[in-house]
Structures are given as C-alpha cells and as structure tokens.
C-alpha cells in the first residue's frame, strides 16, 4: 500500500502528472478576483474566504477524472482489481485518493495563505480558511473518486465527473466557508460548522472508497 501511495505521488509530480495544473488554476482564479471586484478592500476581505474556497474546490476537481482512467488506459486497473484478495479494493481506492490529495490538493492548502494576502484577509481569517481547507478538501477528493470511478470507461469523462461531483460537494463548501466566517466574526459560531466539516470528511472517507470500489468492479469489461 505504501508502494501504491509512492507510485501515485511520484506520477502526479512527474511530467504530465497534473499536480501543477491545479495550483496554477487556483492562482489564476484568485489573482483575477481583485481585478473583477475592484479596489474595495473591505469587500475583498469579506469575500476572501469564500473565493479561496471556490477556487480550491474547482482546482481540486480539475485532475480528478484521471484518478482511475490513467490506470485503466495502461491496464494497471485490471491488476489492482485482481489483487482485491490481498488489498481490499476500497483500501486501494482510499490510498489512491490520499496520494492524489497529497500531490495535487495539499499544495492548494499551502498556497491559500499567500493568496489570502491578495484578498486583504486578516491573519485570523487566513489561518481559519487554511485550516478549513485542510480539513474539508479531502472530502472533495473522496467524493470525486466516486465520480471518477463511474466515468472511468468514458474517454472524455472529465467534465462529466465535475458535473456529477459538484452538487455533492456543496455541503463541504457551505460548512467550510461558514466555519471560516465563524472564526472572523463574533456573531457566527466557528466550532459547530467546523466539526460538521470534519464529520463530512470522515463520512466520505468511508462511503467514497466503498462506492468507488463497487463502480470499478463493474468497469472491467
């Protein structure tokens, strides 16, 4: 399993792996916002956490369709499925998701504080947003794995995966942003939405791999 994690992590970082695409997209989206919104610093700092979350959500969805498709194209997926007796398929899926998250989404979380400066956010807001991204983004990858598994046999499944997955990630977005706002303002709570966010991630850590593994088993013909 460690071997699988290392392989997927390496692949994401090598040429054509797509780890950089997500972060460049994130950077582009957030850089453009101040130009679109105008030089209203108060407004920017108010919408900052939401913009960071939306940017990170879309960037995290970018490379997801290749999660299993690359393995299917070169025949590795058959062998991963055949090894189900040694490595339960859902655990294989979970490890692939973790490697994908570490290589392509974790850099977004790390870049978020820097981009938060562009949005005139306070240190508290930046910290809270980065923390909620850290806790919430694994859920996006795990939900995305189900979509990626369903669309694995479609040659141009990329957009389809995003469309299938996006509605399911809305709760992650809602609770992520509201926890970040909770940390910024006195009136809104932080802990409750943050805990729900953590619960969503844990919930999909179980449901996501199970559902994706089931979909993959039926993809082998």
């Amino acid at each position, binding site marked *: 399993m*460690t*071997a*699988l994690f*290392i*392989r997927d992590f*390496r*692949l994401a970082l*090598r*040429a*054509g*792996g797509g780890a950089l695409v997500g972060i460049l997209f994130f950077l582009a989206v957030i850089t453009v916002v101040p130009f679109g919104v105008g030089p209203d610093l108060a407004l920017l700092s108010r919408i900052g956490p939401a913009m960071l979350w939306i940017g990170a959500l879309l960037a995290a969805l970018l490379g997801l369709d290749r999660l299993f498709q690359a393995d299917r*194209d*070169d*025949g*590795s997926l*058959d*062998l*991963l*499925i*055949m*090894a*189900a*007796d*040694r*490595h339960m398929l859902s655990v294989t899926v979970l490890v692939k998701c973790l490697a994908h998250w570490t290589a392509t989404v974790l850099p977004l979380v790390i870049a978020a504080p820097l981009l938060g400066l562009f949005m005139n956010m306070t240190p508290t807001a930046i910290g809270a947003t980065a923390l909620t991204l850290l806790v919430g983004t694994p859920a996006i990858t795990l939900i995305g794995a189900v979509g990626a598994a369903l669309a694995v046999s479609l040659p141009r499944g990329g957009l389809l995966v995003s469309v299938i997955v996006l509605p399911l990630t809305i709760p992650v977005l809602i609770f992520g942003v509201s926890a970040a706002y909770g940390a910024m303002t006195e009136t809104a709570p932080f802990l409750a939405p943050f805990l729900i966010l953590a619960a969503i991630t844990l919930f999909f850590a179980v449901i996501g791999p199970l559902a994706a593994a089931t979909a993959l088993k039926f993809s*082998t*013909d």
Partner: protein
Amino acid sequence: MRLVAEKLSGERGGETIFSDLDFVIAMGGALLVTGPNGAGKSTLLRIIAGLLAPASGDVRLEDSGSFPDLQSACHYLGHQNAMKPALSVRENLAFWQAFNGEPRKDIDEALETVGLDGIDHLPFGYLSTGQKRRIAIAKLLVSHRPVWLLDEPTAGLDKVSEGRFAGLMQGHLAEGGIVIAATHLPLGLEGAQELRMEGRG
C-alpha cells in the same frame, strides 16, 4: 493444484460467444487457446482472471495451497503492459513486486532473464514495443503466482525473445505452475493442450 472449468460460457454485449467449455489443467500443464479474431480468447482469459463474470458455468482452482481463490493465484498479462511511461523500469517493477507480494526473483535478476539488464534507469515510455513487452514479462517473474494468464504474450517480440520466453514458460511449468495462453503464434510449448475456439464462423 488443478484448474477446473465446467460448462463455462461467456458473452460480450449480450451475445454468447462461447458456451459449455470444459477443461482441466493439472500442475505443470499448459493450455493454448487459439482461434480467429473475435472467437472469445481474451474474454475467456478475463473470465478466468475474475475480471468478467461468466454467463454460466464456473471456473475454480482446486487444492490451491496458500492461495484462497483462483483470482489471487493468477498473473494476468493482458494486451496492455500495466506499466507507467513516466516511471523508470525499476520503479515500475519495484511497485508491482511490492504491491503483488510473494517476491520471487529480484528486479536485476528478472531483467537479466528477459535480457534487458542495464536499462533499469530509463523511463518505461522510452522503450520500444518489444522491450516494453519484455519488461511486462519480467513482472511475471518478480512475484510468484502459480497460474499465468497470457493474452498474446509474444506480440511485438523478436525471435530471440520468443525463444527466451518459451524457456521461461517451460521453467514455470517445471516448477508446477499452470500456463493459459491465448495466441495466434506457436509459443514453443511442447505437450500443451490446445483449445480451439471456432467463433461464429
């Protein structure tokens, strides 16, 4: 150890392409699956590998020793090589060895056996078609599985490599392994059973 298929039928897209196949392969036995394109050779191999469900019938491994079922006792070499072009040959083989478990030969030894020692640092994508196939064959050697399912294993190989691969299969059979190969070309396996699939002709 015996591989037994009983009344095995397979279908593709709702159409039955073969039905009521019966065969038994004992330890050290080989089965060559031959026949025209579309006769269901690959489908049969994928059914044995557990990647497709049979339309009816059943295939199983008896007295399988430490392997709980047929699928876990199989090496499947399909049309694709299951290697990543961006990773080096060694990284690819090391991954499959670690993932499949039951290590047998180490990577240098396996590469030497397929005659490709000294290129382990190259990215897999740089190799020629035949060399890629030989690396995929080396994958069969780095971890142990008693049953080898080979789909056109010699596609793209030159004469020397074909001969070497025949020797590898003989060696595997001599150790009590089982080989099932779908092929159009003679593989140089003496004493192998032949299963001729007629297709729809």
